[in-house]
């Protein structure tokens, strides 16, 4: 069924089709309309789930952890401050190996208060053991939520499905909503190998001494590595069922590209237009869209970027003190290439706190990269000088 819906609505439809059994959630802009829609679906009987309307995001994740531990398919959604408040339990969910799915609408962290998009909220959860998928369109959102449950339940790690505030969460797009029968065939009911079980009572989460703790963490790492192949396989299977295959990353006009732009989420839609325009002008540029960020598809990046002349990474985030986060990770992956195949790599930090990244911005970045006019390893794009003349004047007066 085709429908014109918002990105947040796409999340809700994905959760409904995945037959989530327990939703534990708390409102925060710009995520709120996800859980509003889910609350309606539950109230109207379209979704047979228990919805715990908790008093904080911390409890939202705690509720998901408990429900998942007791064998139910669990979902929550949040943004920014809410995700940060969950952080303790984000670690807990992954350490407990629970296949929870969380939709995070990327929102910039305060202070100052911002409700607009950037990726520092979700990327701050990088080292928790969760998988992360960045979506470009509402179609990808509904498809990715369903895939996330399948992959999570296969590898026993939770997944954050990420969408940009407003550019995706509140933008209406034409979406093919899969049929329930199709999703039921794709995603079987949850069967956890270990859960709270009266027939086989066990204590989950007990004290672990140093002789065993590391083994549990090693298994999380192995599960992440294994998950790369599972995301590919599940993305292919979804493609066979729906005609919409997905991979770890997505290439656009990379054939013969000597300069490749890497970016994620909705900025990629803008970048496609620019790549077309510059190709028409005879500049050999291409685009790689990062989709699955954890596990990190290092091999895939080496395969697509190795041997290019230049790579430009566009980060809508910053690891203060050391580049944008995608830039860091891609550079580290490329370091393992033979020296002759290593491209020159530059990073641009742009669009923080929801600032527009326009086609003109991207064309200008690519032109400067192509002409060797990005001297610094990382360039902050479209910012006032560090000494803000307006503020400086107001302080003086």
């Amino acid at each position: 069924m085709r429908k014109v819906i918002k990105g947040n609505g796409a999340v809700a439809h994905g959760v409904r089709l995945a037959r989530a059994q327990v939703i534990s959630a708390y409102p925060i802009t710009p995520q709120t309309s996800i859980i509003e829609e889910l609350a309606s679906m539950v109230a109207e009987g379209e979704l047979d789930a228990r919805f715990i309307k908790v008093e904080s995001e911390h409890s939202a994740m705690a509720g998901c952890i408990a429900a998942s531990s007791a064998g139910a398919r669990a979902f929550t959604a949040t943004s920014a401050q809410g995700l940060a408040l969950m952080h303790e339990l984000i670690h807990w969910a992954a350490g407990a190996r629970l296949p929870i799915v969380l939709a995070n609408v990327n929102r910039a962290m305060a202070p100052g208060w911002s409700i607009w998009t950037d990726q520092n909220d979700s990327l701050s959860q990088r080292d928790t053991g969760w998988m992360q998928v960045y979506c470009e369109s509402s179609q990808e959102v509904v498809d990715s939520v369903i895939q996330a449950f399948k992959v999570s339940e296969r590898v026993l790690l939770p997944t954050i499905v990420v969408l940009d505030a407003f550019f995706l969460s509140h933008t209406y797009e034409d979406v093919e909503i899969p049929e329930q029968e199709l999703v039921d065939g794709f995603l079987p009911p949850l069967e956890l190998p270990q859960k709270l079980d009266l027939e086989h009572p066990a204590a989950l989460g007990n004290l672990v001494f140093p002789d065993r703790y590391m083994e549990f963490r090693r298994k999380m790492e192995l599960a992440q590595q294994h998950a790369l192949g599972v995301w590919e396989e599940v993305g292919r299977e979804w493609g066979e069922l729906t005609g919409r295959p997905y991979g770890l990353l997505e290439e656009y006009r990379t054939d013969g590209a000597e300069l490749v732009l890497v970016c994620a989420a909705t900025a990629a839609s803008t970048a496609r237009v620019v790549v077309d325009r510059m190709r028409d002008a005879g500049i050999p540029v291409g685009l790689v869209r990062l989709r699955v960020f954890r596990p990190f598809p290092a091999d895939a990046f080496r395969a697509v970027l190795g041997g290019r002349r230049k790579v430009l990474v566009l980060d809508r985030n910053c690891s203060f003190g050391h580049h944008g986060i995608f830039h860091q990770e891609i550079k580290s992956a490329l370091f393992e290439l033979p020296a002759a195949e290593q491209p020159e790599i530059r990073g641009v930090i742009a669009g923080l706190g929801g600032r527009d990244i326009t086609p003109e911005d991207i064309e200008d970045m690519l032109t400067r990269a192509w002409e060797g006019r990005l001297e610094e390893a990382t360039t902050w794009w479209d910012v006032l000088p560090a000494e803000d003349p307006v503020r400086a004047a107001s302080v003086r007066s």
Partner: protein
Amino acid sequence: MAVDPKAYDPRNLHLPELEVMHSGHLACPGCGAALGMRQALKALGDNTMVVIPACCWAVIVGPYPYEALKVPVLQVAFETAAISAAGVRAALDAQGKHDTTVLAWAGDGGTFDIGFQSLSGAVERNDDIIYVCYDNEAYMNTGIQRSSATPYGAWTTTTPVEAPKAEPKKNMVEIMVEHRIPYTATASIAYPEDFIRKLRKAQSIRGAKFIHLWISCPAGHKSEERYSVKIARLAVETGIFPLYEVENGVHYTINHEPAFTDVAEYLRLQGRFRHLKDEDIETIRRNIEWEWKRLRAKAEMGRTLPAPPPPVRAVVEEGEHEPSTE
């Protein structure tokens, strides 16, 4: 079945034979929390799942891969006992397993302090859980630090004898009562029949149930292990810890009329009170008197008030769980 202080004989207890706790566990000698769990599971039976946040019981239950209980246990983050129990409840209901009891078993720090928000959320939603706070009146697992359950005058490592706790104990039961939940009660490990009756009554009620269980802690109270039950009994008989229950936030029943033994008897058995001067003890005496006046006034008010109108949930009564009156 009310506890008649004259007829009460601790050597002649009628407790269920059922044991849901193994004899092997990691509690200290004389631990009231171990005794409390044993009694609780005798009451609730083995169709029970137990949620334990960070607290002494996170250790007592045993390290990986051991378990001191014969029922499933979920260890959860410090501040999440109530929501975690609610999450397990939701998952069980989603799978049609409505008859399994979910017990949240948390210490005073995890209840009065860090878990307060999630507890308030869960009981306000009237989530169908039994929440037992086993209260040893300080952060004992981390080595005896003050909590908001620590009583006036007590020594802890963060309230040294030069500056013992100056504030009264937070009244957690009244806070729960004011959430208008179906059932709130206090209990003591020294009165297991009363505790067991209250747990079974809680089990028969749909919605949020809160039981405040006073326990002794030889390591933290600086008391002798052999006096653990005696001290718990004195907490009740001196009037410091009244045994009562409240239905729908309105109807109070005082379950046990204490002997009002002089509180000095209770205090002198615990090193945490050794530094108290006579005037401090007199302050504690006056507070006991005042608290009992307040409790009796509330009980009297509850007798004259009709049952609250909807949406406060009425208790599902079962014959064997009639509230006791004296």
